[in-house]
């Protein structure tokens, strides 16, 4: 048991830190969606130029091929440098790319992977449907084979960046005769195909991050099928476990920073009683200390799961434990920010750093829904970690 990083990892940290100091983009725009997307894509391009794009991707596919520990170092340093995340490029880097690497054909790989790494394209994930959310396998958007094409008809929903993306990971039902997990096909959907209509949906945080996507006999060549026809469920599952692996590290580092900023601000900002600094309130002060402790434990859990990953291979269902803990904590931190802000908590659209917390607070409500709800994560922990009967 140790917390020592190897000499190689330490020098990697030095290298990354220096590189980030010189290259990391500053001042991510707060509320301007278009500017945000440009910022994210620009950051992806900078990473590519610096040789850091696809930090977890194998080197043979153009990625950095970093070990789990170096991925941790990378995300810790990005967090320290104030890099918020890779929202716009998340699906491409953390889902689509890894899926193509695992299950794609050589043509699919050589066409798509470099584009993703270079920040030339945005991907979205077309999994959820109005009738199929938690029960994803019940999805019913139809894909009918017609010659060497698939004609897709149906509807997806909650598609993040659906209005920005050039490609999507699209799950369609190609066989409705058997059990629901069989008969799903994973295809690379070209978003410019005729018959696709995208409509943004406004979220409770005032963003328009996700969309409804309608398909009216939209046609995709059969060569865009990833993995085998009707085997899309298995193809998709490999990316979902990836999502709960290292991809959340950066959010965890960022959350720790928010807590520290919050403590700093609470020392001077007038709290809810309108007189004293927020931290003079015992309840606020103890909640802040509690989140400090919980954030520390979240980091320890990340270290523990990296240790497991390094020893036993791919991340197991324990990833659900970290994800649940993170979503719960980010909501508590958001709520605490509101308490610390006191009277200023109602000011929504201001561009100051303080008020971005109000929006972050509202955004935190998504953490326990997107990527599998907290209830579904608890089912996974109960069934697969604890072995409880179904």
């Amino acid at each position, binding site marked *: 048991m140790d917390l020592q990083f190897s000499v190689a990892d330490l020098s990697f940290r030095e290298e990354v830190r220096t590189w980030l100091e010189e290259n990391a983009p500053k001042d991510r725009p707060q509320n301007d969606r278009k500017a945000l997307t440009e910022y994210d894509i620009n950051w992806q391009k900078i990473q590519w130029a610096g040789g850091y794009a696809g930090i977890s991707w194998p080197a043979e596919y153009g990625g950095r091929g970093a070990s789990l520990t170096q991925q941790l170092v990378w995300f810790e340093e990005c967090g320290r440098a104030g890099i918020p995340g890779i929202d716009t490029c998340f699906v491409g880097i953390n889902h689509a790319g890894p899926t193509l690497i695992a299950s794609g054909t050589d043509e699919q790989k050589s066409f798509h992977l470099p584009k993703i790494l270079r920040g030339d394209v945005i991907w979205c994930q077309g999994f959820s449907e109005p009738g199929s959310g938690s029960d994803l396998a019940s999805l019913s958007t139809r894909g009918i084979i017609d010659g060497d094409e698939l004609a897709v008809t149906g509807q997806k929903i909650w598609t993040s960046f659906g209005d920005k993306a050039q490609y999507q990971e699209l799950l369609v039902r190609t066989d409705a005769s058997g059990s629901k997990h069989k008969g799903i096909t994973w295809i690379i959907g070209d978003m410019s195909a005729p018959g696709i209509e995208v409509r943004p949906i406004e979220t409770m945080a005032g963003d328009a991050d996700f969309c409804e996507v309608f398909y009216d006999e939209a046609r995709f060549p059969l060569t865009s099928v990833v993995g085998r026809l009707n085997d899309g469920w298995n193809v998709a599952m490999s990316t979902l476990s990836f999502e709960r692996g290292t991809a959340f590290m950066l959010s965890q580092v960022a959350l720790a920073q928010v807590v520290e900023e919050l403590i700093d601000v609470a020392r001077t900002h007038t709290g809810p009683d309108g007189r004293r600094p927020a931290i003079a309130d015992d309840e606020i002060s103890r909640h802040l200390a509690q989140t400090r*402790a919980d954030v520390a434990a979240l*980091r320890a859990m990340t270290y523990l799961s990296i240790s497991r990953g390094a020893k036993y291979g791919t991340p197991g269902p324990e990833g659900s*434990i970290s994800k649940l803990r993170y979503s719960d904590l980010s909501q508590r931190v958001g709520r605490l920010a509101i308490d610390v802000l006191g009277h200023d908590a109602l000011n929504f659209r201001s561009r100051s750093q303080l008020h971005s917390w109000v929006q972050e607070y509202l955004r935190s409500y998504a953490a326990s829904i997107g990527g599998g709800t907290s209830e579904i994560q*608890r*089912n996974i922990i109960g069934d697969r970690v604890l072995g409880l009967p179904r």
Partner: protein
Amino acid sequence: MDLLLSDEQQEIASTVASLLTDDLGNDTIDVRRTPTPINRETWARYGELGWFSLGLDEGLGGVGYGLAEEAILFREIGRQIPPGPFLASTLSARLAALGGQSQLAGSIAAGRTLVALAEPRNPDSAAGASISGSFDLFDGQDAEYVLIVTPRGAALVAAEDLGSLQPTACIDPSVHLATVDLSGAGAALYRPAGDDLLFERGTILIAATLAGVAEAVRDMATEYAKVREQFGRPIGVNQAVKHRCADMAILAEAAAAQVFFAAVSVDEGRGDAAFQASAARIVATDAALEGARANIQIHGGMGYTFECDANLFLKRSHVLDRQLGDKYAELDRLIDLPQAI
């Protein structure tokens, strides 16, 4: 960087676990439910095995492992909650050794001299060369010394200098509890807080014990949820039960991860060791108390009985929460510490 137990550490854990299981099972009296004198033979055997000096340097007469190994041992104690002054023995052996009293240190480490923990009932009654104030005394029955550990320093006081003890029935039936008032008692040994990090070490060992409790109650509840049937199915198929078990698993994982992170922080001399220790205590207290509560609930009427172990884990958690400060004091300390590295 590796937070998993090494093979050798795994070996320590399983040796401790099986010995505790044997000892608890072999006793003719149910020592976890009845206040009994410490079995001196057993205690000396634990001493011989090095349990009270695992993390003490060999040069100081210890086994020469680190705090990580001590935390591994205390987690096993939390899993089985045997009675006895494990914490006071471990901390006082170290204190005596660091204070140059190697004979006393050796005798405590060997399990021959018993030491009880004295917990100040308010911040004014604290450790110093001369000690005054009101204290809770844990497992003081046959003790020759009492140990006081506070963030400001640690002291050993000879039992004969204590004056009269007022025994009280303890919420945990295996713990001997008494109150004692001291006015100007001279310390046999006093060391102000410094590089020893004695308070932080104690905090982490308490957290390790609580993490063990959290794991024990998670396992107890999960096992019961698999076998107890109602409405023709195991109760664990119901999400109200399953999700509670999942929450216990999350709490226990957080506690253990943070305890080991903190223990290694001390062993490696990280600058934020005090921060990590404090965080460990806070998350482990939550994990044990919330887990113990859920475990009672999941056992239904059985969980409310004295016969079921569920109540013992709850009660021990409360006792642990009142040693070396408590969760509130820890929160107030943590908010003033510099941020983690």
